């Protein structure tokens, strides 16, 4: 590694003031330190965010939701009682690497590393998460999905810090799920992944739907046509299969060592149907299987 300065500020404002050209924020380091050791990233100043209380806690928000500190490790996040209302996000976090990795890696880091295969991202987007970002101009918040610019690239500026990820309260009659395909059961990178979220109305028809595709495009993809098809209808196996086929059309996969584009598109179709079915099962309305 090249020489670098290391600071561990106590507040978000100090962290923002310390950032600039050549600086990089550190949370769990499971991506950053690997990149630095392998010479893939030159960093002149490492700004460790883990001494900042707001970045390492789960806080309740006035609307009844939660603000997840961006640098909080996945193990601590999963164990937090407030996260019981968001099982899809906890399950997604538990897919990231080994226990050793989960004891260090953060959800904020998973977002900012911007890997198209990032496992926590589809659940965040499906749950309607907003990113609280601090920069030289103060704080702003924006939908998580607006942060992604391409593989490994976000829309955050060099002096921006992702502070927290805010989830709205879990709506009545809503459920989410994230499923991925990996050749191995553990310790692997998604060939394709699909997150789903449904909210049903009082009749049991779909009032709102979100489907997010991972590892099949440069950024996470919302499958808008599939979402529209589901809305207003009571979920059935036939409807879900049609929506899944539409979701596959929205995928923009590449062929690489993990799988061909055609294979990934097929995976999206299968995973999308299963993810929506998993939401239905969580809502106590399991789909009848044909």
């Amino acid at each position, binding site marked *: 590694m090249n020489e670098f300065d290391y600071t561990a500020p106590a507040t978000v404002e100090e962290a923002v003031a310390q950032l600039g050209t050549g600086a990089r924020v550190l949370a769990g*380091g499971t991506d950053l330190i690997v990149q630095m050791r*392998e010479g893939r990233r030159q960093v002149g100043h490492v700004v460790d965010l*883990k001494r900042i209380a707001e970045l390492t806690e789960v806080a309740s928000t006035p609307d009844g939701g939660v603000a997840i500190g961006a640098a909080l490790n996945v193990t601590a996040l999963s164990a937090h009682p407030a996260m019981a209302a968001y099982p899809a996000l906890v399950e997604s976090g538990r897919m990231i690497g080994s*226990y*050793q990795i989960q004891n*260090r890696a953060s959800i904020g880091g998973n977002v900012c590393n911007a890997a198209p295969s990032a496992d926590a991202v589809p659940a965040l987007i499906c749950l309607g998460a907003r990113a609280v970002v601090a920069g030289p101009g103060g704080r702003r918040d924006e939908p998580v999905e607006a942060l992604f610019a391409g593989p490994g690239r976000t829309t955050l500026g060099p002096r921006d810090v992702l502070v927290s990820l805010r989830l709205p309260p879990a709506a009545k009659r809503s459920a989410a799920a994230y499923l991925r395909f990996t050749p191995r059961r*553990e*310790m692997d990178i998604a060939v394709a992944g699909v997150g789903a979220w449904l909210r049903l109305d009082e009749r049991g028809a779909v009032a709102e739907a979100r489907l997010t595709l991972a590892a099949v495009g440069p950024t996470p993809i919302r499958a808008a046509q599939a979402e529209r098809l589901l809305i207003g209808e009571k979920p059935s196996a036939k409807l879900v299969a049609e929506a899944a086929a539409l979701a596959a059309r929205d995928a923009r996969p590449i062929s690489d060592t993990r799988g061909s584009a055609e294979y990934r598109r097929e995976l999206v179709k299968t995973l999308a149907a299963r993810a929506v079915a998993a939401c239905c099962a969580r809502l106590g309305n399991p789909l009848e299987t044909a």
Partner: protein
Amino acid sequence: MKALRPFTINGEEIELALDTRDTLLELLRDRAGLTGSKEGCGNGNCGACTVLVDGAPVNACIMLAVEAVGRKIVTIEGVAANGKLDRVQQALIDLGGTQCGYCTPGVVLSATALLERNPNPTEIEIRHALAGNLCRCTGYDKIVEAVVAAAARVGA
């Protein structure tokens, strides 16, 4: 830039000359002389460098040593008490759960942390806890059997 910084390693408070660039693994091996923790892949996949930081297993090769200042670090050298192997170490020997031995320090620490948090793990829970410790010799079954046996030796 080097500076003396305080660390707590295996219950002992010690000041070590720290270069900001040191990983925790480099600090332990090269500055503290504790060579039981191994470097395998160097990128957080294999778990040969697993140590406990405040009781939690982490990959020491991808943690900066400066992040560990003031925290409780346990390495394989701190597991046996007064020259007596702990129950996981003894079970690995008794049941043939170690061959070349390179992964063993990390396996012991991952298993120890598991039993600390969950004294009666299922086989699935053991396999999950060891998913980040790659072994190219044993095929894992004997390691898992050893952790099952260690769990049964309560307080041993």
